């Protein structure tokens, strides 16, 4: 019977103001602070605080047998430090139990890997430093933004010193094999790839609260039986933390389910492991080829959620094009402002997809339409460029 490896993503973006043309050159504040503080607080009350309390209790009640991992983006850590230090303390307390592992990622939850190797390095390093400073932990497993992955990212993570890297277990790469094993990317020596079990993860992340789902209502016992019936070494359940209490409210019974799951898993004879424990315990069974980029977003499971239309492509390209000039000016505030604009959510909100995926994009967007998201973003970028030029002139840098 396989082990069970659980990881939750914790992230909040910095949403931009409705930054119209008339603000360009005049308004150096880009973020809607009130909205960002309000959403953080709302999610904290519905998810972060009660879920942290619950998991801390579960860890204590199970004498450390229940284990899990969190990946907490740099942007949400900053938001908690700024608006809700109590929420950050709650995470610190959970991590201090020793049963909750942290993962490394890009500080700004960005698509930097796709656009700039150098910026990617910089952001991963920043995130490691932040985790060291806030949690006194150095992660051993890397997960890229939204599980964006290919062979090159695995190789890159290895050279950065990580033991494991996460990916979406997509059918076209698995080619009939099970995601419940560890894999090895080509041109890597020892790093292991952990693949998300899409079916079982999404049962908990999305379908749990859907009354039209034939398995509704799902009980912890039933789910533990499904896990026990799986082949392989480890079942990877990866999802957003906000699936507990925010995407699926408390009245769906989601908290009761999670409260009961550790014991049910225990009774089914299975063990919980963290990603780094899984990497330690099991060998990579075979090679996993991913020449093209995969992710856990939308039905395409590729980059189209952020780079599918021309608005997204232009916006993301224009941000990254500023890299050399921004870093040359070496103004910490300007650099941070620029880097926060790389957060993947900005591009996610510009998606014009329809259907089920489209409605997920719509659920998360703070703007009336993807076109507004694009216009405000580009106006902010125009203002940022003006500030950049002023800074360059002050420093006598050639333009």
């Amino acid at each position: 019977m396989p082990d069970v490896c659980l990881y939750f993503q914790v992230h909040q973006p910095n949403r931009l103001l409705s930054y119209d043309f008339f603000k360009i050159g005049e308004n150096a504040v880009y973020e809607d602070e009130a909205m960002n503080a309000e959403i953080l607080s709302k999610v904290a009350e519905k998810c972060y605080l009660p879920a942290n309390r619950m998991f801390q209790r579960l860890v204590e009640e199970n004498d450390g047998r229940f284990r899990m991992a969190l990946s907490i983006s740099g942007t949400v850590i900053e938001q908690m430090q700024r608006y809700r230090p109590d929420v950050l303390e709650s995470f610190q307390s959970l991590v201090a139990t020793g049963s909750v592992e942290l993962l490394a990622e890009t500080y700004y939850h960005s698509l930097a890997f796709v656009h700039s190797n150098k910026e990617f390095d910089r952001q991963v390093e920043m995130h490691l430093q932040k985790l060291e400073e806030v949690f006194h932990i150095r992660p051993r497993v890397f997960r890229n933004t939204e599980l964006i992955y290919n062979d090159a990212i695995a190789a890159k993570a290895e050279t950065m010193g990580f033991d494991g890297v996460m990916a979406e277990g997509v059918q076209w790469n698995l080619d009939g094999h099970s995601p419940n094993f560890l894999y090895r990317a080509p041109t890597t020596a020892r790093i292991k790839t952990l693949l998300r079990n899409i079916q079982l993860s999404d049962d908990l992340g999305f379908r749990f609260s859907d009354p039209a789902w034939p398995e509704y209502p799902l009980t912890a016992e039933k789910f533990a039986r499904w896990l026990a019936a799986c082949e392989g070494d480890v079942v990877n359940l990866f999802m957003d933390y906000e699936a507990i209490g925010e995407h699926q409210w408390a009245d769906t019974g989601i908290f009761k389910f999670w409260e009961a799951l550790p014991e049910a898993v225990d009774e089914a004879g299975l063990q919980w492991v963290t990603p780094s424990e899984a990497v330690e315990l099991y060998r990579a069974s075979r090679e996993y080829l991913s020449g093209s980029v995969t992710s856990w977003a939308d039905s395409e499971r590729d980059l189209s959620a952020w780079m599918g239309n021309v608005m997204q492509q232009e916006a993301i390209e224009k941000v990254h094009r500023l890299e050399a000039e921004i870093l040359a000016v070496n103004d910490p505030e300007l650099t941070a402002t620029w880097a926060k604009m790389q957060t993947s959510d900005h591009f996610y909100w510009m998606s014009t997809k329809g259907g089920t995926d489209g409605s997920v994009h719509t659920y998360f967007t703070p703007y009336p339409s993807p076109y507004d998201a694009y216009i405000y973003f580009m106006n902010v970028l125009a203002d940022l460029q003006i500030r950049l030029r002023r800074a360059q002139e002050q420093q006598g840098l050639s333009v």
Partner: protein
Amino acid sequence: MNRLRVLKLGWEFPPLINGGLGIACLGLSRALAKLVDLTVLVPRSSPETDFKDFDLRGLNQLTLEKLKAAEGRYQYESFAQVRNVPVFLDPYADDGGGGISAIHSEPPADDEIAFSATTIKQLEAFKAGELYGPDLGGKVIDFSKVAAKLAMQEPFDVIHAHDWMTFLAGVEVKKATRKPLVVHVHALQYDRAGSTARGWIYDLEKYGMEEADCVIPVSRYTGDIITTHYGMNPKKIRPVHNGADPVEAFATKKKFPEKLVLFLGRLTSQKGPDFFLETAARVIAKNPHVRFVVAGTGEKLRPLIESGAFRGLGAHFHFTGFLDKEKVNDLLSMTDVYCMPSVSEPFGLSALEAAQFGIPAVISKQSGVAEVLKGALKADYWDTELMANHIHDLLTDDHLHARVAEQARLDITAATWDAAATKVMKIYEELIR
């Protein structure tokens, strides 16, 4: 000599809709009111607005009581006229003819001007919904019926109808009263839908112009279209340029160092926003220190945003969405060059407004305002290369910039609504002579 009495039929009217038609109707009405007794009949007026100089009546404001009261005052004349009119006034009656009201061959007793259920429904129609909603055709017909009935009640010498929505009403009133009809053309289906445009709106335009005693297009450009695409006799066509109400022009220092080129208008094919984008791409290729701003909204907004992104113009090509008058003026106050690449623009009032802000304009040859702004730089709307060269020249040659702006200032001093009203007055006098 008694003042001439004019019945004007309009559609949109400020402050309810601030499209070009409403603004032009208001401007001309104010100036004409100095010369004639003017009654303006529109489908809808705002209850808060009262124009001192002329009588504005919105059908939405009318109550049956008011109609009856009006009837009482004008009973004799009305019915004296009605008596001479065959009962064709309700050619579209939807109640089987049984409800035809108000038109009797003999004066009714006392206050008995009975408006039918149909009329009441017609009046109700103007209190709700959109002026240009999906039932526009129905509104046009209802307006013509009610207007014709109302026209029975008050004396006037000339009917003056503005654009196709009121042409049917104008013709009905003309038939009912045998007064001369002037139709004023602010925009044509040709402008909106291209040279192959046909259909019921085109037919209505043509019918209105055929039945009219005189056609006033807002430019020679539009006059030529009326001759060539609607087959009207050029002798009946008397172009009168719009005026521009003076605005309080001011200058604002831009918050950014780049020059600003402005497009202002509805984002429809007719206004040529695609050509503006194309032009912008050409200018930016030569000179990246320019911002192009598209102010307005419409069906072309989203495709235009996507085209701009595709060409990578995003950080130079900005969209403001719909702006109110105050914001438009803010924008004008910081604009360096105004660009109007319309595919077909009967007039183009916004170019005059820009001129009042001392902004030189680059405008398409397919526009009426090109006849007024003699010094503006012109190009065919499709010639984005020339358009881009003009813009580039204005942005880089301060002397040229000043010269074009100065000529525009001279041109607009002559372009007043009083001048327009004087010309229209002359046409009236010829018609009733």
